[in-house]
């Protein structure tokens, strides 16, 4: 009985917002991936959109390799924006804006843009499609970026940047 209560206490501290929000959201993210895969055989990752869209404005060889997929990647990303918009209208009751400082978003976004492309994937490509495929490359990729992100976030917080 006492150990049960201690266990619940730990769970409450680690999951202050419960888990259903996260679990349901995660299942839906997986379901979106699965719908596209079952229909087309394509593993849709989110970060390739960055390079494929750049092929519209740059004739560099690195971007031109994505010309064949750039149109549907644009549609996929548009779907992501609209799907989140549906959530905002139905559950959020309007727009929500972050308090994280613009310099963190801009500089962090820059590193994300370089890193996902050099590293062959992001949280969806490696994290969901790759890990779901039991790909050793993706598991190593996820462990790498997760570990570095944890250290980075802790260091930035320790230096007093908040939020």
């Amino acid at each position: 009985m006492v150990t049960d209560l201690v266990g619940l206490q730990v769970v409450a501290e680690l999951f202050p917002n419960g888990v259903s929000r996260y679990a349901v959201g995660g299942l839906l993210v997986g379901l979106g991936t699965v719908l596209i895969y079952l229909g087309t055989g394509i593993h849709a990752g989110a970060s390739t959109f960055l390079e494929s869209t750049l092929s519209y404005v740059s004739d560099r060889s690195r971007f031109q390799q994505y010309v064949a997929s750039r149109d549907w990647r644009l549609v996929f990303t548009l779907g992501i924006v609209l799907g989140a918009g549906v959530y905002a209208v139905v559950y959020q009751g309007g727009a929500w804006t972050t308090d994280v400082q613009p310099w963190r978003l801009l500089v962090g976004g820059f590193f994300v843009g370089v890193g996902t492309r050099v590293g062959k994937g992001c949280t969806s490509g490696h994290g969901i499609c790759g890990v779901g495929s039991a790909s050793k490359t993706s598991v190593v990729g996820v462990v790498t970026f997760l570990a570095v992100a944890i250290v980075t976030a802790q260091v930035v917080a320790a230096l007093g940047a908040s939020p």
Partner: protein
Amino acid sequence: MADRHPLFVPLVLVGGLVFGFGLAYSHMARPEVVLDFLQFEDLGLVFVMFGGAAVAGLTFLLAPRLLGRAPLTGDRYERRLKPFDRDVLVGGAVFGVGWGLSGICPGAAYASLGVGNVAILWALAGMFLGAYLQGYWRSRDRAPETAPSGAD
């Protein structure tokens, strides 16, 4: 593009809708939530990644065995396997710095725009800039391989 199945684009759109709704529902489209996770203040995000990977993994495991080819493309169902090299570690580490600094990854950033977070345009601008610069460098790296060199 011309010979593509008429349902190809609609299906990709619906998949994106569900994907984006899921990211918003899980609150992963909020950088604060990701930063709380990385600082061990709310570990709920584990369920987003493992939930998504579990659903996808089960499908990737079963589809190749139970189904023939994808109806809209005629392609075989395969696993997502990418070759491992140093880039995976270097790129992963650079991505980690960016993710830990901003709390934003590509898919969640698009979804964040959808929940009305206009400030995320800073992150999207940074991502496109980063993706462009790496593409610029790597396109240039590749050029000498195709150009005839004096030694040949």
